């Protein structure tokens, strides 16, 4: 191999999903050079049927994307959520005891920086991915090595070095694992995960419907799992139906009309007549948290570090908070002349660990509290809902958490630069 085959970067990122792409872009904004490596072909990842999922974006996440200059590209695709209606349900009926987080509760609880009383946004992943790709391709500080795979990977005192399948040699001071819940990079580093598997799976599909969703997200807690309808642009909503794996497998094997019928029994007419807009996807639910966010010259971000219950729609938001925190740590180290893969990296783990554990714990408790038929618990959660409804302090806490405003905020998540 000749010397010209070696490319030198500040950071090497493995995995070009939404979190990996955002990490590269955010680092380039702080003047750091990165290599982004992914085995998927970016052209295929841009195909309309590649990823039919949608994500919730908290106000902090939108601020981050805005600070990275992405807002003009995605603004038209951001569906605001003005209300979050939480209801206790039986199939065929929704309990009248509901918890309605609306813009008035926001204003009265004095949350502050949220604009126009919006508690968050929904966006279809494909639009976000397109905007990120455009910005990444336009950046001279990012080299996108895809489709390509890592043949050898070495982390030592000197730095990180990677040889790609094509023979190209890349070096950097730090390796960032953004390669998802089964992260090879994490396993290769010997970082164990703590897992709790729920006896639940989730079925996700985009629905089109006859009634206006009125910028409302519905979280209906059925005994076998939460059922969430999240508003998208136009008369569309993203459905996340958590239930027993057997129930969902059976639902998926139904003819299309019968599956629509099953879903309609659970939407209870909230959004009128429904139809399927995308292919339904089924995936198992689990809680998974890495024992450590960092190892020598390695940092985990997004699902590689944590997978939580989708009940609160915080998955991508947590990943973006990882990005914000890591980019602050790395750029501050760089500006102090430090080796960015050195001892300063540990501060990233300290920063993110508390946030992850508290949110993972809260969503886990929320899910077990609602997905239960035991009479005392049913009463407790009804009292709980009423208590939350009546308590402005608790409500503002929940709203702030949903808006991603608790904890120490990374610089890219503070008001526009």
């Amino acid at each position: 191999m000749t010397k010209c085959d070696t490319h030198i970067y500040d950071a090497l990122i493995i995995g070009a999903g939404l979190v990996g792409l955002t990490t590269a872009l955010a680092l380039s904004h702080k003047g750091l050079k990165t290599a982004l490596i992914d085995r998927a072909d970016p052209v295929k990842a841009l195909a309309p049927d590649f990823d039919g999922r949608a994500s919730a974006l908290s106000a902090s996440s939108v601020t981050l994307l805005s600070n990275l200059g992405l807002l003009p590209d995605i603004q038209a695709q951001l569906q605001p959520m003005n209300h979050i209606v939480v209801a206790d349900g039986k199939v065929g009926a929704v309990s009248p005891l509901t918890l309605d987080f609306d813009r008035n509760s926001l204003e009265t609880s004095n949350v502050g920086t949220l604009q126009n009383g919006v508690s968050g946004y929904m966006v279809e992943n494909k639009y976000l991915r397109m905007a990120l790709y455009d910005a990444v391709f336009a950046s001279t500080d990012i080299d996108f090595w895809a489709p390509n795979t890592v043949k050898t990977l070495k982390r030592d005192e000197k730095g990180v070095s990677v040889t790609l399948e094509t023979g190209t040699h890349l070096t950097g001071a730090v390796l960032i694992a953004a390669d998802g819940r089964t992260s090879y990079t994490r396993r290769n580093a010997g970082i164990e995960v703590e897992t709790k598997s729920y006896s639940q799976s989730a079925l996700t599909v985009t629905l089109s419907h006859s009634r206006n969703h009125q910028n409302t997200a519905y979280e209906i807690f059925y005994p076998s799992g939460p059922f969430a309808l999240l508003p998208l642009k136009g008369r569309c909503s993203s459905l996340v139906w958590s239930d027993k794996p057997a129930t969902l497998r059976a639902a998926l094997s139904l003819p299309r009309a019968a599956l629509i019928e099953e879903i309609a029994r659970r939407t209870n007419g909230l959004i009128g007549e429904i139809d399927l807009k995308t292919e339904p996807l089924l995936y198992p639910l689990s809680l998974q948290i890495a024992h450590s966010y960092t190892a020598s010259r390695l940092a985990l971000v997004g699902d590689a570090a944590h997978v939580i219950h989708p009940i609160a729609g915080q998955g991508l938001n947590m990943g973006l908070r990882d990005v914000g925190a890591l980019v602050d740590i790395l750029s501050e180290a760089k500006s102090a002349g430090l080796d960015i893969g050195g001892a300063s990296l540990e501060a990233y783990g300290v920063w993110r660990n508390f946030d992850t554990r508290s949110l993972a714990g809260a969503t886990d408790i929320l899910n077990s509290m609602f997905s239960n038929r035991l009479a005392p618990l049913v009463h407790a959660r009804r009292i709980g809902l009423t208590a939350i409804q009546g308590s402005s302090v608790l409500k503002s806490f929940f709203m702030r958490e949903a808006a991603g405003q608790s904890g120490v905020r990374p610089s890219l998540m503070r008001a526009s630069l």
Partner: protein
Amino acid sequence: MAYSEIAPEHLKSISVDPAEMESFTRMAEDWWNPDGMFKPLHIMNGARLGFIKETICTHFGRDENVEQPLKGLRILDIGCGGGLLCEPLTRLGAAVTGVDALEKTLKTAKTHAKQMGLNIDYRHGTIEQMVKAGETPFDAVLNMEVIEHVANPPEFIKDCGAMVGENGLMICSTINRTMKAFLFAIVGAEYVLRWLPRGTHQYEKLVKPREIAMWLLDSGLSPEPSIGMSLNPLTSQWKFSNDVSINYITVATR
């Protein structure tokens, strides 16, 4: 290079306290281990480097936001240890000289700098040897977490001061001699949290801000008011304040 026939470790002198030399020799290989015996220094490093960079840039009218803001400046780091400050300051463009009385420590520093591809002038010796040898004074002299380990602080500061050139400056950081410092920096860090080996700091060798200010004046420098540094043990973040009761930094200019 060494300055005399007798190895500095064995010199009975202003800088060198034989008991201190022995404990630092035992720790020599651990300098760059983020979880090792110098963990507290690693945690402190980002904050103190930020301070050093800002102070030097302000003093010499440099733009902090360029890639190598310290380019062309000569910096001396006294008691440089494994090079925790020398390496970053070299990356920021400075021509750095690091002096340490321990050969074993310097070996760690040299090996690490070579691994990182950094060119640093490491000297095995003491500050008084540098003064005697007629070394050219520096733009900035760093005296970080060292004074509490030396045998004769007033004379030591005088020698450090002699190495500060015209229009240059010296930055000193150390631990105050207060009950609070005794509780946190000695009892807390060495006995409770076990961040540092027992005996790393001795209460009677700690220095008060007014003492350091006096010694700096005696060496012909003008000290500025001391700045406090405090650690939040939950987040491992250091911040600067007026509270000089534990860790503090004093800047002095010529």
